[in-house]
Every structure is written in structure tokens, then in C-alpha cells.
């Protein structure tokens, strides 16, 4: 039962990863693409981590999966901000705001 639920969560997570990739390819500029990567992939990873945690053998694995999710989530949001800041400063004047 837990395996079925875990597999369903992993499947749903990959849908969000696909959505993030589609956004990366289709969205018009770097800022919109960052939205797709930070948000869709973030939830995709969370769902996959949850699914894998349900199938995990022991508490140690669950803790390690949680740590992976936490650090990727923090790094994703921080890197998104840093890339956006760099892109804004590289933009020609007059396009700001």
C-alpha cells in the first residue's frame, strides 16, 4: 500500500519536473524561466522525496532524504535570487522596473 502511494507521489513529482522543463524551454526570458525552475522543480523534488521516504527501509534513510530535500530547497531559492540579481544588473539601463 505504501509502495503504491510512494510510486504515485514519485510519478506526480516527475510531472512537475516536466512542467519546470517545459517552462524553461517555453518562457520568454530568464526571470520567467527562474519561476518555472524554482517553483515547479521544488515541488517536484518534494513529492519525489516524500514518495521515496515512504518506500525507505529505515529512519536513517528518511532523515537523509529530508536533509537532501531541505538543502536543495534552500539552495534553489537562493540561487534563483542570485541569478535574477545578476541578470538585472546585466540588463541595459531603462529596462529596470
Amino acid at each position, binding site marked *: 500500500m505504501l509502495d503504491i502511494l510512494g510510486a504515485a507521489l514519485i510519478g506526480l513529482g516527475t510531472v512537475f519536473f516536466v512542467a519546470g522543463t517545459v*517552462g524553461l524551454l517555453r518562457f520568454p526570458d530568464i526571470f520567467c524561466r527562474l519561476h518555472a525552475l524554482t*517553483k515547479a522543480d521544488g515541488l517536484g523534488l518534494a513529492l519525489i522525496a516524500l514518495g521515496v521516504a515512504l518506500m525507505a527501509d529505515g529512519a536513517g534513510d528518511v532523515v*537523509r532524504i529530508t536533509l537532501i530535500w531541505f538543502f536543495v530547497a534552500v539552495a534553489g531559492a537562493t540561487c534563483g535570487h542570485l541569478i535574477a540579481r545578476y541578470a538585472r544588473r546585466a540588463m541595459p539601463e531603462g529596462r529596470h522596473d
Partner: protein
Amino acid sequence: MRQTERLIDTTPTPARSGGSVITIDTATPAGAARGRRFLTMAVVLLVIWAALTDFRPDALVFGLPAVLAGAGLVFLMPTSPRWRLSLRGAPGFVLWFVAQSVRGAVDVAWRAFAPQMPLRPGFRRYPMALPAGAPRVLFLNTVTLLPGTLSAELAGDSVVVHMLDTRADLAADLNALEARVAALFALT
């Protein structure tokens, strides 16, 4: 420890006195504050290392130097203002955080898959009321998870937010987020 509201102290610097607030001390020299932070960080890193290695004692051959080096970084970084977490505000924040990140991801996934790709992107400036330090960092990182908003750049006490649809009510969303962060850090 009072039952109504328990608070986690992290960085010890001047304390605020309040009925439901537990503080460690009132005035600490910067050196002692750094030493306290070093110990806190070392304990956190040691727990993470233990979890990663399934509490194998022989793994500490590598773990102890790594923990000491990692915790030693607090001496290289500027001290940030102290912060405390409100255990009463935490469950509400976590639930809201989960709901918002699901909403944000579904929103952007829908826009990516939609044939016409409904976007009206642009930048908006938002003045932050939260104090600098950990509350502001959490706020900025969470803005990126909200539907249609991305924290793009800091400008003094304002944040430049990139929006997928500039017709959305930015101020209302970010005011709500600031209130949640303030509750989490026992600032209200």
C-alpha cells in the same frame, strides 16, 4: 519554560524582556557570542553527521574535522542579529508554506503547459517591514515559492520582485507572508 509559548534561542545578544519570551542573557561581548554560535553550529553539524553515517563511531575520523571546520566558519562570517523561533507560530507557518508552494508550483506548471502561455511579466518594488537578518532571509526565500513571485534583487529595505502576472495583488500576498514570518520569529 512556560507552557503558552516556548522560544528557541539561537544567537545570544541583547535580550528583549517580555511575559512569554525566554531569553538567555542581556548583554554578551561579541567574542562570547561567536563562541556560543560556534558551539551551537558544531552540535547541529555533529547531529547531521551522525544521521548521515548511521551513528558509526569510526566515521568520526572524517566527521570531527569536517564539523570543526564547518562550525569554524562562524568566525569568518559577520554576526547577524539574534533571532528566536516561536513554537506557537511554527505549525501555522509550515502548513501555510506547504500550501503556498503547492499553489505556486501548480500555477507555474499550468502557465508552462497552457498553449497561449498566460504571462504578463514585470518588476514591482516592495518595502519590507521585517528586520534584517534571519526573518528577512526567510521572507526573501519564501517569496520565490509564492505563486507568480520571485525575489530578484535587494535595494536597501525594499525587494524588487519579478511577477509572472503584474495584475496580481502583490502587496496583499507579501503582507500576508510578512505577518506569517513575524509570527514564526515571535516578532508580533
